[in-house]
């Protein structure tokens, strides 16, 4: 390998990576911006107040429903200690049969 060429290859790779990055970001940015606009319009028409980063956990899904105090807020078997309760589903603990209602 000729290092003259080596330098050229390194510079070229940088350039290509940069170009690809810009093109890629440009594309997603365009897509995303359209999305932002669309989401705003839907929220306005429907009167929605909460985004959906995740679906089940109330501390993140429906903040507008938040209680100032929250004993047994989600489910009786849930780990209601903040960090763990937010990483593990309460379904890690078996629910009583009547709550499962035929589901597993």
């Amino acid at each position, binding site marked *: 390998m000729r290092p003259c060429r080596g330098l050229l290859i390194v510079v070229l790779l940088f350039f290509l990576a940069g170009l690809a990055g810009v093109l890629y970001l440009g594309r997603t940015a365009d897509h995303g911006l359209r999305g932002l606009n669309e989401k705003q319009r839907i929220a306005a028409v429907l*009167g929605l107040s909460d985004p959906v980063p995740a679906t089940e956990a109330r501390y993140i899904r429906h903040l507008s429903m938040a209680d100032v105090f929250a004993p047994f807020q989600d489910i009786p078997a849930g780990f209601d200690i903040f960090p763990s309760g937010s990483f593990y589903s309460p379904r890690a603990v078996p629910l009583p049969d009547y709550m499962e209602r035929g589901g597993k």
Partner: protein
Amino acid sequence: MNRRLNLLDYAAGSILRRYSAHLPVAAVFIIVVFLAASVILTLSSLKKEAANILAAAPELTVQEMSGGRQTPIAVDIAEKIRSVTGVESARPRIWGYLYEPYAGVNLTLWGVDEITGEKMFSGDFSFREGGFYKPGERWKIVVGEKVPQALNLKGRKNLTFTDGQGKLKSFEIAGVFSSVSSMLTADLVIMPEKDLREFFHMDKGLATDIAVTVKNPAEIPMAAVKISSLCPSCRVISRTWMQRAYEAVFNFRGGLVLLLWMGCLVSFLILLWNKGAVLSGLEKRELGILKAAGWSFEDILELKIMEGAMISGASFTGGFAAACIHVYGFDAVLFRPVLFGWSVLFPSMNLVPVFSFGPLFLILILTVLPYMAVSLLSAWKSATMDIGELIRGEDG
């Protein structure tokens, strides 16, 4: 200038020549940058996302409280709220949750009155399949992008939910929202208000809560105070609180990840220190040869700085590019459980790139700077070494 170019050329050649020696450090470097950049990019985009959605959300949400718990609110209160100064509109909303035990998923059921239905039907929104049901149609629903998959519908259009009295109600899917709006609609099931009332067995005079819009931001606090005095049993939630709560949640979780990342960073620094503190015999000999060929201390130092800058620059760019692809291309899939907690449905995020230079600059300083420092240190050590020491063993 030519001297610089020649040295640069030599440095590039020497890196390519000994790539196997640089690869492990570069790999760790890339991982460290990737992790931190992923978290920071995700968080800044999410904050933007939340702010964007909340900007269109109603300024105030009024809920009825009974015994410290939220209960349905009387629709009449909306009329009283409309008379408060600054209030532009007050819409009673019918909505609630439905736990679907077979799929183990929690859906958000959302009722839409006729005027809103009209707007949704005629508006220009993107759907993955179908569209909004025609105004006046009954037992039709429009669902979020992830719902059919979560309920395992496999293309079926009809589905049944069990209502509060154990009776089955069947619905037909008229449309599925596209992933573009997933961050807002992923778990929604939208249906006519009348049908939702029936499904929830909710009286005509009641609603879940009341969404209040106030045009002038300066009037929001005053309006909130007036509404709570009009309806003492009501709780008034303001949009600003929610905004702050989202920021706090994201910052807390991002901080948690970055805390773990600190461990990564420390091991990276230890690795660097180790590498810099010990010069291999091969490196020593190469430096000895360069010195014997008449390279000065400055030449060698410059060479090593160039090598370090190329490796750290390439690793940083590489790690950052990987993070961009991970976050914007793959919805930060590696960090979702940590950043958002557990969830049955994860919406497609389609995050918008947001670059905040502060945090990125911080990563740059925390990784590139130590790398350069260590390569400088080892270069300094070797450049000041006596040639006799570097070529020891050559003496007859």
